[in-house]
C-alpha cells in the first residue's frame, strides 16, 4: 500500500533534482514490525525511490544490535541520514506531518554536505566546545 500521494511524490522528486551527493537513509526496524515501523519503512522506500542519489538500508534493531549501538539508536522506528559521514541526524517515530518537510530538507542538506547556515552562525557554532545532544519532541498532528 502506498503512503505518499502522487502529487507529493512529484513535488519531492522535483526537489530531489537538487541533491548533489549521495545520501544513505539507514532505517532500523525489527522482524515483527510495529505499525509505525512498517509505516516508516514503507514511506522511506517510497522517498528513496524518488532520486538516484538516495539509497535505503533497512536493519533489524534486534538482530543487528551492534550496528544499532554504533549508530546510538536505542528505539525504533529510527531513521538515520548518512552522507560521507554521520552528521548525528536521527528521526525516531514516523517523520510525518510537518516533520516530513524537515526530513526532506535534511536529506537536501546532507546531499549538499553543508547545512546552509551563514558564516556568522557557523562561526558561533564552532565555539561550542563540548558534545551537545539536541532533541526536538513533536506530535504528528
Amino acid at each position: 500500500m502506498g503512503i505518499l500521494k502522487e502529487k507529493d511524490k512529484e513535488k519531492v522528486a522535483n526537489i530531489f533534482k537538487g541533491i548533489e551527493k549521495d545520501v544513505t537513509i539507514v532505517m532500523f526496524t525489527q522482524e515483527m514490525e510495529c505499525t509505525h515501523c512498517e509505516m516508516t519503512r514503507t514511506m522511506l522506500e517510497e522517498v528513496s525511490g524518488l532520486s538516484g542519489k538516495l539509497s535505503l538500508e533497512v536493519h533489524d534493531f534486534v538482530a543487528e544490535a551492534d550496528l544499532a549501538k554504533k549508530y546510538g539508536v536505542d528505539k525504533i522506528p529510527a531513521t538515520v541520514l548518512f552522507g560521507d559521514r554521520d552528521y548525528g541526524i536521527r528521526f525516531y517515530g514516523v517523520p510525518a506531518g510537518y516533520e516530513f518537510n524537515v526530513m526532506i530538507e535534511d536529506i537536501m542538506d546532507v546531499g549538499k554536505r553543508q547545512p546552509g547556515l551563514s558564516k556568522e552562525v557557523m562561526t558561533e557554532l564552532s565555539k561550542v566546545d563540548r558534545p551537545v545532544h539536541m532533541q526536538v519532541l513533536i506530535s504528528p498532528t
Partner: protein
Amino acid sequence: MDFPEFSFDTSLLEEAKEPEPEVTYDLLILGGGPAAMSAAVYAARKMMNLAIITKDFGGQVRETSEIENWLGFQSINAKDLADRFEEHVKGFDIAVSLGPSITEINKEADTFKVRTDGDRVFSSRTLILATGKRHRPLNVPGEKELVGRGVAYCATCDAPFFKGKKVVVAGGGNSAFTTAVDLSKVEAEVALVNFIKGWQADEALQERVKQIGKVSLLDYHQVVRIEGKDGVTAVVVKNRENDKEDKLDANGLFVEIGLLPNNEPVKNVVELNEHGEVIVDCSCKTSVEGLFGAGDVTTVPHKQIVIAAGEGAKAALSAYDYLIKKSLI
C-alpha cells in the same frame, strides 16, 4: 495493513525552493531590499527565469519605524511595508537563496558565476546588484566582542532594551540625534560622542535634543574602546582637543557613524566611486556588460525607499532589454 491517518505535509517545501546550480538563469538578483524586490517583481512580470540571492528580505527598511513618504500611505509601519514587499515577491514563482552571503562574482564568456559562502555556484546571463548598505563600524577594541551585548547599530530595533539605562551614541549626524531621541523616549541616559568638530545633524533635530535636556553632548571626542565582558560596562572616550581620556559608565553603545556600501563581491569586478559605490548610468548599467546596479549600493543620490524601488524596476527592464538585444531570451 491500514496505517494510521498521518499526513505527510509538503507545504513548507514550496517555500524552500532554492536556486539550482545547474540552471543558467536569465537574471540573478543579489540583495533583498526595496531595489532587489522591485527588480524581482518587474523581472517576474517579464517572465524572465530568475532567482534571488539574499541574506534577508526588507534590507534597511526593517531598521526604520514609521515611513511617511511612501506614496499612497500617509504613514505606514516600516515592518508592514517590508512584509508587503516580501509578500508581493513571493506571489511569483521565484527561487530564493536565503541566508548565505555572496563571496565571489566573476564573468566567464557571457555567463556570470555567483559563489555563496555555502560554496555553491549559481549561473546567470545578467545580474542586478542590489546589496544595499550596512552600518559603518567604529573599529575599536570591544566592539566586535560586544555586538548584541550592548553594542548596537539600530535604535529602532534595540532602543527598548535600554530602558532607563546609560547609553553612549557615537555619531554627530541625523541618525545619531534620532537615536538619542529614541533612547530618551525610553528614559535612557544618553551621551552623544561626535568625532568631527561640530555637529552635523539638522538644526531641528539638534534643537529637539537640547529640549530633552538630559542628553550630554561631547563634541570632538572619539570612542577609544568599549569595556565589559558579558555586556558593556563602560565606554572610554578621548577629548581630541587635549587627548584627555574619560571613562563613561554605560550599559550600551549605539554606533551611528554612517553607512558602507555592500560592494565586496564586485569590488574587483566593476568601477566604484571614491565612497565604494557602484557607478551606474541612468539605465542602471555598470562598467560590466550584463551587470546592472540598483539602490543604495550604487552612485544614485538620495538613498530613499521610493528611489531604490524605482531603480530596481529600471534595472530589471534594462536587463530584459539587454537579453532581447543579445537574442538571449
